[in-house]
């Protein structure tokens, strides 16, 4: 089926099966490879994107279900105030290591502080527990979210 997608404020038309997860449409058909494949079953968060500003796992989101909703990926998140602050905090605090999961971490954290400018420890846990980091950058992720939130 031919699907029109609004991704990072640009319209993309793709011809793909309706059950094809957004992850593979982004990566393989459109070439936005910043969104990562980690598990394929919404267990690791590496594929996190925003749908109308809410964090979703693109590896289990069929493109037929996207409709008119705005998709924001890691390539576009820097244009939002929350995304920019998260990116800056991540760089200031040297959060990343291998970096493979960090697209998803940044997307989850940006969605959190956009909707909750003063997240508690529990709020951070709830928003970020779906995002695995094998390098173990959790300590700095926590500090970076608080720093970014303080600026929102």
């Amino acid at each position, binding site marked *: 089926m031919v699907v029109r997608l609004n991704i990072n404020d640009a319209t993309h038309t793709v011809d793909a099966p309706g059950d094809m997860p957004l992850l593979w449409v982004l990566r393989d058909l459109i070439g936005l490879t910043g969104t990562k494949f980690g598990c394929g079953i919404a267990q690791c968060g590496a594929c996190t994107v925003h749908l109308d500003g809410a964090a979703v796992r693109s590896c289990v989101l069929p493109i037929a279900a996207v409709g008119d909703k705005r998709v924001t990926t890691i390539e576009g998140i820097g244009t939002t105030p929350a995304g920019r602050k998260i990116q800056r905090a991540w760089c200031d605090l040297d959060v990343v290591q291998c970096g493979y999961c960090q697209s998803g971490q940044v997307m989850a954290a940006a969605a959190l502080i956009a909707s909750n400018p003063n997240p508690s420890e529990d709020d951070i846990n*709830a928003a970020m527990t779906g995002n695995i980091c094998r390098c173990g950058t959790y300590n700095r992720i926590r500090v970076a979210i608080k720093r970014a939130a303080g600026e929102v």
Partner: protein
Amino acid sequence: MTFAAAAGGGLLLGFKVPARGDEVPSFSIGGNAIEGLQPGVFAPNAFVQIDRAGIVTLVMPKVEMGQGVYTSIPMLIAEELEVSLSNVTLEHAPPNEKLFFDPLVGPLGGQLTGGSTSIRYAWEPMRRAGATARVLLVTAAAQRWNVDPASCYAEQGEILHRSSDRRASYGQLADAAAKLPVPKAVTLKMPEQFKLIGRPVKRLDSQSKVDGAAQFGLDVRVPGMVYAVIVNSPVFGGTVASVDGTAAMKVPGVRQIVRAASAVAVVGDHTWAAKLGAAALVVKWNEGDGANVSMQDIVTDLAKAAERDGALARQDGDDAKAFESSRTRVDAVYQQPFLAHATMEPVNCTVHMRPDRCEIWLGTQVPAHVVDAVQRVTGFAREKIVVHNQLLGGGFGRRLETDMVELVVKVGKQVGAPVKVVWTREEDIQHDIYRPYYYDKISAGLDANGKPVAWQHRIAGSSVMARFAPSVFKDGVDPDAVEVASDLPYDLPNQRVEYVRVEPRHVPTGFWRGVGSTRGTFVVESFIDELATQTKTDPVAYRRALLGKSPRALNVLDTATKAAGWGAPRPIGQGRGVSVMHAFGSFFSIVADVEVDNGEVTVKRVVCAVDCGMVVNPNTIEAQMQGGVIFGITAALYGEITIRDGRVEQSNFTDYRMLRIDQAPPVDVHIVKSAEAPGGIGEGGTAAVAAAVTNAIFAATGKRLRRLPVGDQVKDADEA
């Protein structure tokens, strides 16, 4: 200095990260360095290139997999080269075991990132590479101005003449410097002259890793590329008997089904089609003998082997005689499971096979081994094989292997286009090369004062070295398997350490973060704790009394325990444990606090002290300790791969569990000031933390865990 297009030819997949303001370095990763000089490029050695436009390109002899070497190695070069880190281009080194030879891993091929060797290797040669280039640029300037070179100096990419206003940029001097003979010896800065080394320099790769620009192996896109998903024989050692691809070929977007000996690949227009096609395949396998193997067989093999005399790894004094005269004897058996690496970036590889040559894209810890692997399958001459290394989405030892390369080349030979072959997470976990299962028998004889006057330790398990670097496996001893165990910081006058090689039937085994130190430290540091318990001595006091000959180990122990507040009473249900380790040329001590609630173990806080000699980037050391500790806690609490009927029982993060942020403790890192040569830091946290956790569980519950992972063992004990 302005920043022109990325230097070097053949930057097929290079990209540049645009500058984002002053606070963010505008360095870029320019792709893979190409061997051989380009005209007009000043390249006094394999690591530094400066072109006429003044663009400084640094070729990285070690790969970046999170450990921060694409920041710390540039720091070492820039310290002597006198250039700003915000204006350098980094390139992945091409395969070349001569140019990028690291003697610390020489028997393993030399061009290998692993074993926490990067900074130990880079410390001197990288500074020398920078200094050599600088000396040549100074000489070129002095000749141009007809002045004494001693009256010139380098600063921020320029040579300046002290007594006049004359200055010349490195780009302006590149041609002249390239014609000068390379000096054999250069003088390096004294530590008190360092401007970069020892400072908390920010990572150079952060921006690209938070905006989606960083390119990992799985992100490679080659014109005309198709996608494939691999289906490996579910049983180790099995082969394809027959394939019914009727249903798979009906999946929209599926183009082709390709057989290799031990696997089938489904090729499609995109990964999703290939994945659906793979799920629709009907494959009959010749499962072979492996299908009869289960955990019980493997553990029984090990237990039997541990009864045999092993090859001698260390003998001090007369342990047998010392046992006879000792007051008390303590014996224990420790077991550690198979572990998968589970890098966040699943195994993948992109290949373009042509009749007479091969181009390959992947993130690898062993670029030259990739060439070897392609050669094994194709017989091509080395110059017909081009490896494009990428950032690694985690390595941990998985990307020291080239099994994926051989398989993908076999697949690629049958596909008339470049093909990206992806392991799903399930394939990645079920077809890893696993950290071996180890079975340790350890005994101590204590004198009247409780000191271990006799010590015997027999390690039974797979030899990774015998497969990976056979020349290192000598007289029956695998130096990796006995690491730490055969070189303890403790005063043990009569000790015998033995190794018995037992291969786990069909299960492939390989290096895993922390390698031998991870397995050795869990056993020894748990057992030392047992001896402290036996003698009713505080675990820290017991260790201190044995560390008289190792002041650096004693110092980290004192630093960590003081920072953690060792000795303060713990609330009911909580416990505090400690470990000490000398490995990778560094000294570590870790204090872990745990809480046990209804058998559920939570690590509440970790305090580390590390003496890793001279510090290059304290930022990196903290990050590596924090991350290494969390990696190690994941394994200690949850990590276990089990085999049933020749198959791995785990498949994804649902049953191969990872520590998540809500379970991750704060990890405090204390760096001990040291003037010693740099030691390794990437694996120490992982290797040293498990024993601290299980010792803390013992303190909290009285339950001594001699088998990892912790899993439900505390819960089961409560119920029993």
